[in-house]
């Protein structure tokens, strides 16, 4: 059974304090790894897709990386507006099966 595990479940950072979120996955035939941001009461907002080990993608203060077993979302000098839940999802199989982790709830304190 495909499985996606995210850690930590919650993370509290001071503004400007860089850190990383982890997403480990066990899936059959990974075809891609997605990262989403979700604000309270809203649908997930797409951030990145990573397709192969060694790939990196960046957007403002966020950088996503991928290895054969896990992905990291690095947050550099975060601001309070980066506070949200960050979800990763593994995309596999012949019909685009997408399995989500439970997310990491990030709080950035001014």
């Amino acid at each position, binding site marked *: 059974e495909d499985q*996606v595990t*995210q850690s930590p479940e919650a993370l509290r950072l001071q503004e400007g304090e860089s850190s990383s979120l982890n997403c480990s996955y066990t899936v059959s035939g990974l*075809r*891609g790894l*997605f990262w*989403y941001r979700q604000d309270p*009461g*809203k*649908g*997930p*907002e*797409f951030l990145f*897709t990573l397709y192969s080990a060694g790939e990196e993608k960046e957007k403002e203060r966020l950088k996503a990386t991928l290895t054969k077993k896990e992905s990291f979302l690095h947050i550099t000098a975060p601001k309070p507006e980066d506070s949200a839940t960050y*979800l990763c*999802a593994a*995309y596999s199989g012949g*019909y*685009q*099966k*997408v*399995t*989500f*982790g*439970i*997310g990491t709830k990030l709080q950035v304190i001014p």
Partner: protein
Amino acid sequence: EAEVAQSPRYKITEKSQAVAFWCDPISGHATLYWYRQILGQGPELLVQFQDESVVDDSQLPKDRFSAERLKGVDSTLKIQPAELGDSAMYLCASSLMDTEAFFGQGTRLTVV
């Protein structure tokens, strides 16, 4: 910018009543997903369509839930009868082949 449209945004219903949610995917997106998200958890796939065909409904409680996507465009998810444990956010998403999915704003269901 193209968006996935969902309605209603909020729904309160009594236990044992029927409830329906509607989703209009981004134009041209053949794949449509319905997810359920309980507070503090990640989205859980209920049903996945490729055009008008169901490709995965293994986690859909078929005794009370049904989904259809007539003509391969918009979709409806129905619950009958609703139970207290169905209270959750119901999310619709759509994608092109082999690409990321884009989500709507969801329907927050409260069963009382």
